[in-house]
């Protein structure tokens, strides 16, 4: 597993990133000062419930956010360069070549009047204009073959393919430009379990074969347990906890992570019969709670939690397990005066 290796090479550093949406009801803080790293060659699972900011985060990494959304602060350092300073031309080159995205719904992301191979050749043509068409077609052919689609389907239109095949084509399009980072935003969510399981196996195989880096955004915690090397948990726009996947599931520290993991239904029969019931519902982010945004639902909330925001800090000597919670952080002596 990549993360347990001695040297972890950082591909992306996200620092204090904030995203706001300007809505009629006011400014909505979708992502609030989130920091994390993505290491080369890892599968990082980003989990959370709907509205926690995980998809916004994925889009922000490609600077794909358009008004009313806006990156209101922070840095995204990709392979040593701050992409926040890129102009439009640089961004166009960056998207696709350095980072590519696999979206959730292949039926709305594929062009219904374009044949499968045209999707591939178009992507290559735009980003590598000097590639001859023949070579582009060859690349498309090899790629769909490794993804388990027969090459005679290349001349098909998207509607002629099954749901699983469409999602494989989407995956292929994410890979065709040899991007360094693949952002898979709920890429398997619309699929049936068996097809999903096969695609997940495929992700793992591709990562091993091409040393891909994958940010897997999903609401499905069990899926992340199955495939990710590390897992990050977001809640209400804040990063709650990040750790190696096994560590996170064995030794969750943030009260939200603890509750979330205990409320995931499991098919194992010897498992507990009752699911944990978390009180309350996620907050309205136009008026987020002060301090830690989880405090109104937190069973272990303390007075400081509703006043000051904790810092995402490592709790182990190696610095692999980070938690955003006052339970694990020294309270400032004079915090009551700071408020």
């Amino acid at each position, binding site marked *: 597993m990549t993360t347990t290796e001695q040297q972890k090479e950082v591909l992306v550093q996200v620092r204090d990133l904030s995203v706001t949406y300007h809505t009629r009801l006011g400014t909505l803080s979708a992502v609030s000062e989130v920091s994390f790293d993505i290491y080369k060659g890892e599968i990082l699972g980003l989990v959370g419930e709907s509205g926690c900011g995980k998809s916004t985060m994925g889009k922000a990494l490609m600077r794909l956010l358009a008004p009313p959304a806006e990156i209101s602060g922070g840095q995204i350092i990709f392979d040593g360069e701050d992409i926040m300073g890129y102009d439009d031309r640089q961004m166009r080159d960056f998207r696709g070549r350095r980072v590519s995205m696999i979206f959730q719904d292949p039926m709305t992301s594929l062009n219904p009047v374009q044949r499968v191979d045209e999707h591939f050749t178009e992507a290559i043509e735009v980003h590598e204009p000097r590639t001859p068409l023949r070579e582009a077609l060859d690349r498309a052919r090899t790629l769909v073959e490794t993804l388990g689609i027969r090459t005679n389907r290349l001349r098909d239109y998207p509607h002629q393919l099954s749901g699983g095949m469409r999602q494989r084509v989407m995956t292929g399009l994410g890979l065709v430009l040899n991007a360094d980072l693949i952002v898979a935003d709920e890429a398997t969510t619309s699929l*049936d379990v068996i097809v*999903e399981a096969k695609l997940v196996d495929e992700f793992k195989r591709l990562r091993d074969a091409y040393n891909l880096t994958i940010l897997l955004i999903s*609401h499905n915690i069990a899926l992340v347990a199955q495939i990710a090397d590390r897992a990050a948990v977001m809640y209400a726009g804040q990063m709650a906890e990040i750790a190696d996947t096994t560590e996170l599931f064995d030794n969750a520290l943030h009260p939200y992570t603890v509750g979330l993991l205990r*409320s995931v239904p499991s098919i194992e029969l010897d498992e507990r019969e009752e699911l944990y*019931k978390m009180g309350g*519902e996620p907050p309205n982010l136009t008026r987020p709670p002060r301090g830690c945004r989880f405090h109104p639902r937190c069973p272990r909330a303390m007075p400081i939690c509703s006043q000051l925001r904790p810092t995402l800090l490592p709790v182990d000597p190696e610095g692999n397990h980070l938690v955003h919670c006052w339970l694990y952080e020294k309270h400032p002596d004079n915090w009551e005066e700071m408020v």
Partner: protein
Amino acid sequence: MSDADKRDILVEVRDLRKWFPVQQGFLHRLFGEKALHVRAVDGVSFEIERGEVFGLAGESGSGKSTTGRVVLGLSRPTTGKVIFDGQDLAKLSSTELRKLRRRMQVIFQDPMASLNPRMSLGKGIGYGLEIHAPEMDADARRDAVVEILERVGLSPANFFYNKFPHQISGGQRQRAVIARALVTKPDLVLADEPIAMADVSVRALLLDLMNELKRELNLTYLFITHDLATAKYICDRIAIMYLGKIMEIGPLREVYQYPLHPYTQALLAAVPVPDPHARRAEPMPEGEIPNPINPPSGCVFHPRCPIAQPNCAVEVPPLRELRPGHRVACHYAERFLP
């Protein structure tokens, strides 16, 4: 059927088929080509006992939702029978059927799409009573709505009574949908993916609520889901559907512990487990669900089945009871007996 007499059966489904005709071009019809049908449900039989939660599970396109709709009389079967509390739905007039509807209600997946955005919750929930219980006066109706709002946890009820669907949260909306289904005091509730849209932290509460209401109000659920992990927390018995047919049926724990059909085994193995130490190793069956217009001959699962034999492509396997209450449609299921 001496066994069936002893059990208290609320719904009996006998050899149900629902075929949808495929729209074809004028020339096809002119030259008298054979009409094509999507065989959404193709020969399904089961019983639901009073007070149990009966699960219908399967992938998309397996026919589980269509089966549910036909059981409730929302759509007429092509052939076969649905007997609700001793009455054959096909023999009822539309007025009689409407009277029976009060006793069978439905909870759909998308709460935003199933609540009228222009009606306050109180009015929307009371609307079912206006239709099914016209003898009730406005005050009695309001009392009934307030009572059910409290029951589903939308409390204080007087506060939620005047709220509109867009003013409440997703979890509360799903509670409102449950309240609307239960206000007519039904016997049978069809729950079609009732919590698929809810987030994990809200799901457990909704499942709990449904279990609690079942006990308090003596309900019977027909629970349709694609999520086998969720089914575990609510269903007593489960039927696994594939391409319009039941592959396996039995008590839930029995089926999960000793799956006898290769399809059930694959389906159970494919469900991701929230435990990184238990990563799945076994390979998944090839291909995807075939086209229901032209389903495979013999056993519909044979093209993807890892243990298929030549006769599987010819003979349709009947549902056979191999363990008490546990029936499976596979010629070679014996080899999986514990």
